[in-house]
């Protein structure tokens, strides 16, 4: 055939191998990763989410440098003791840094989800893309799983980089200050938190996305859900401060639970309970306000799971697989 | 009935219609042209939704722009598909009837009549959201005919109808045409149009390329000689005789060996000569046809490849 001078460019059928249609969800997820990992704004948001860590790294770096070049304090017993800067370094509760980092990263995580996740199914609805998916050996399960995994993995990558970078820096530089010994399982707990964060944002994004025909409306709705719940949390925060001085115990207890009743709140709550800390004032700046105690772990975890599953249930119901033709 | 005199209409720099002069008489006239040729613009001018930028257009002697008198005479069945989806077909048409000025009782009776006429009598009480394309077309047609207009304009009316629906609609239009109404149908589907009428208006890029009877137009297309196909099992013998005729421009032997195709600018002369071939020279002729004597070919010749 290749010896003929004029090539036959008419239609050729494809008789090559076709993979078994069992890993289609990965094809869909891969496509989402391909597109979203190229978006610059994802990386900008990732960096901004790590701004707390960046600032703290700078503070710790300079504090440590200066503490080493300051002369040790002389006490009466003639034993060199730590100078005030070193004492500062010693007092740092490392796991709280992660709580703050995650807490301050929440809004940037939201924006990441708006950019990467909330348009997926909405745009498909507008373009009638389901018709294409379902005419191939793909069904609703593959479609939703693929979409979810694509968004989840993208968010996970974006969210993890600042925290993991800080962890790596910490484990290399601040061993002496109890970075590792403070909590040996810190890395695994951190990974657990990152996965749950990514999961809940991905689920919400996909669930809300499936309700709309336009990415913009879906995005606006998700932002609205986030900020309205955040508003509620702010109100609870105000109540907490009010109850600081005079409140009775039950009221204080209720408020301390409701404090976590928002999208970001759930994540912060889970962070606190996983890392078993109530948090400390961020940036080490003393604050007369008592920190809200961590919620019970199982409750926090269960609520996150439930919210995620409800969102995906909405998506499952909304994606109508039936009318492939006509 | 409808008369255009040098009518032009443009939108900014985009031309809709360019210097169109024509008359649309009672009966069925087909409005043809590719997408963007100006068909919808023409319809909008006739229904008075727009004014021509230059030139004039009159419907029964009156200018249609914003003229309720003229609206009474026209029924328009557009190709857009926007309805109040939560209403039933019957409710929708009744609402249209009320808007045309009929009182409640009259609206009801007219609606019922129309529903029967368009074949929706059993199905019109379901809401429009669930309607198929064909059912929507029928509702559109019903509301266009409510006030018994003399002129009916239909933009792609056969779109989405199954063959039965198509036949029914074409029969209905034929009946209306016989009653003396002026019907203008715009369509892409040439073989359907051909079954309805031989009277065409062909637009291309805003200009009127041809108007009138299809056959007459075909005769006048000088650039493309007529193709006549002769089915015979002795093609070469027939060809020999044909080549001798002075007005036969070319003879083409079909690859399958059972037909020949000739081109001539004087088909009439050829048809006179044809019996001689068969009877005097004894050549067997199994079929005679003219492959490009149809609307599709005329369209292609005039609009160009």
């Amino acid at each position, binding site marked *: 055939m290749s010896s003929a001078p004029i090539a036959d460019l008419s239609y050729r059928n494809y008789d090559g191998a076709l*993979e078994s*249609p069992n890993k289609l969800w990965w094809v869909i997820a891969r496509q989402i990763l391909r597109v979203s990992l190229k978006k610059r704004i994802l990386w900008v948001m990732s960096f901004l989410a790590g701004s707390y860590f960046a600032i703290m790294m700078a503070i710790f770096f300079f504090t440590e440098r200066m503490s080493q070049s300051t002369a040790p304090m002389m006490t009466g017993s003639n034993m060199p003791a730590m100078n005030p800067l070193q004492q500062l370094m010693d007092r740092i509760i490392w796991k709280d840094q992660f709580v703050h980092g995650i807490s301050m990263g929440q809004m940037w995580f939201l924006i990441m989800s708006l950019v990467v996740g909330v348009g997926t199914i909405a745009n498909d609805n507008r373009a009638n893309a389901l018709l294409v998916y379902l005419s191939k050996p793909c069904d609703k399960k593959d479609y939703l799983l693929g979409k979810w995994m694509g968004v989840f993995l993208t968010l996970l990558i974006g969210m993890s980089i600042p925290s993991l970078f800080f962890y790596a820096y910490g484990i290399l530089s601040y061993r002496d200050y109890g970075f590792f010994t403070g909590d040996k399982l810190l890395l695994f707990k951190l990974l657990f938190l990152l996965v749950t964060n990514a999961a809940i944002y991905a689920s919400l994004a996909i669930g809300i996305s499936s309700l709309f025909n336009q990415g913009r409306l879906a995005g606006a709705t998700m932002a609205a859900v986030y900020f309205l719940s955040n508003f509620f949390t702010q109100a609870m925060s105000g109540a907490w401060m009010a109850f600081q001085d005079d409140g009775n115990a039950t009221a204080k207890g209720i408020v301390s639970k409701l404090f976590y009743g928002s999208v970001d709140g759930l994540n912060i709550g889970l962070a606190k309970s996983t890392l078993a800390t109530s948090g400390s004032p961020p940036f080490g700046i003393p604050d007369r306000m008592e920190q809200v105690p961590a919620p019970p772990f199982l409750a926090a975890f269960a609520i996150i799971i439930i919210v995620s599953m409800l969102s995906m249930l909405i998506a499952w119901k909304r994606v109508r697989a039936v009318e492939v033709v006509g | 009935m409808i008369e255009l005199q040098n009518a032009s209409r443009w939108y900014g720099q985009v031309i809709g219609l360019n210097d169109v002069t024509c008359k649309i008489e009672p009966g069925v006239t087909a409005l043809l042209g590719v997408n963007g040729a100006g068909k919808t613009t023409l319809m909008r001018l006739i229904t008075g939704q727009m004014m021509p930028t230059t030139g004039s257009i009159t419907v029964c002697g009156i200018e249609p722009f914003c003229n309720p008198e003229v609206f009474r005479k026209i029924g328009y069945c557009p190709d857009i598909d926007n309805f109040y989806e939560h209403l039933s077909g019957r409710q929708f048409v009744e609402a249209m009837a009320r808007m045309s000025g009929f009182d409640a009782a009259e609206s009801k009776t007219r609606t019922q009549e129309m529903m029967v006429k368009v074949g929706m009598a059993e199905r019109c009480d379901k809401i429009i959201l669930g309607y198929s394309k064909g059912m929507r077309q029928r509702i559109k047609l019903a509301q266009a005919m409510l006030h018994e207009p003399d002129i009916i304009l239909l933009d792609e009316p056969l779109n989405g109808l199954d063959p039965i629906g198509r036949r029914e609609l074409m029969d209905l239009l034929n009946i209306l045409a016989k009653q003396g109404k002026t019907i203008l149908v715009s369509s892409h589907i040439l073989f359907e149009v051909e079954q309805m009428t031989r009277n065409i208006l062909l637009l291309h890029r805003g200009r009127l390329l041809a108007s009138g009877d299809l056959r007459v137009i075909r005769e006048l297309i000088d650039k493309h000689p007529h193709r006549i196909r002769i089915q015979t099992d002795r093609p070469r013998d027939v060809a020999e005789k044909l080549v001798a005729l002075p007005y036969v421009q070319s003879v083409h032997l079909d690859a399958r060996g059972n037909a020949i195709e000739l081109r001539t600018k004087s088909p009439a002369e050829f048809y006179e000569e044809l019996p001689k071939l068969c009877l005097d020279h004894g050549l067997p002729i199994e079929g005679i046809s003219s492959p490009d004597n149809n609307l599709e070919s005329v369209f292609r010749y005039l609009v160009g490849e």
Partner: protein
Amino acid sequence: MSSVSVASIQNLTVRYGRFTALDNFSVEVPNGCVGLLGPNGAGKTTLIKTLLGFIDAAAGGGTVFGHDIKKDGRLIRQKIGLMPEQDCHIPGMSAVQFVAFAGELAGMPAAQALRRAHEVLEYCGLGEARYRNVETYSTGMKQRIKLAQALIHGPKLLLLDEPTNGLDPQGREDMLELVRSITHEKELNVIVSSHLLPDIERICDHVIVVVGGKLRTEGLIRDLKKIEGHPCDIELREASPAFVAAIETLGATLLESKGYRYRIQAPGTPDQVSKLAFQAARQTGAQVREFSVAERSLEDAFLEAIR
């Protein structure tokens, strides 16, 4: 071509609530190019969904390329390419990316999918526009890209739903030529569902007619169009009763007349009958312009079949 039939449906009943879409339906879909005809709501759409492996059968079943329609939906869809009637595409991609992704969804390795996407787009006439976003395409181009995404994975059966929808005459011509060249020269099986019967006549050899959820008729188009006794149609330049009288004297019977078109029945082969026509014409000064063995149009055959 293999002798395994494309699809075989037996006694299939499909219901949506109380509405029976397909009623004890059985059909053997032959190889080659098949037209699917039927009024709206007759069950054509349901039949297509069935072939794609999407239905919930109340009774009966069937196979497509040997795979069970109730269990092997995915395997079936790997072998079928569907060109849907409605507009559809994956948002935010260029034509090449879209078609390649469609190929990947069908199971092609990514590199093969991209390579073949270029090939298929070229073949469908979208060579120039392939790097443009699909959302900027005109109607004709959208139809072609739907065809391209149906062909990308080299299906054994192509399902076309109203392939010439919304196309102007030239576009329609191009699409029909394209489909015909793929199917007839490359031996790809095709099922075309359309209301435009001349389109079906152009591309297909067989038809399956579905009415009211049941199989009304099926067979070769050629056979459906034949008329008993082979009458002949004659068209004159103008109507001529004298011509009719003359030809009747020569032994023909007038069956129908409409203006200047006549349908007659006469013994003998077509060339013998044409001789009679010419003789009558010569005697009476009429001019014969068209002569052919009468055939029903597919549209008439269909309308008769569903009465």
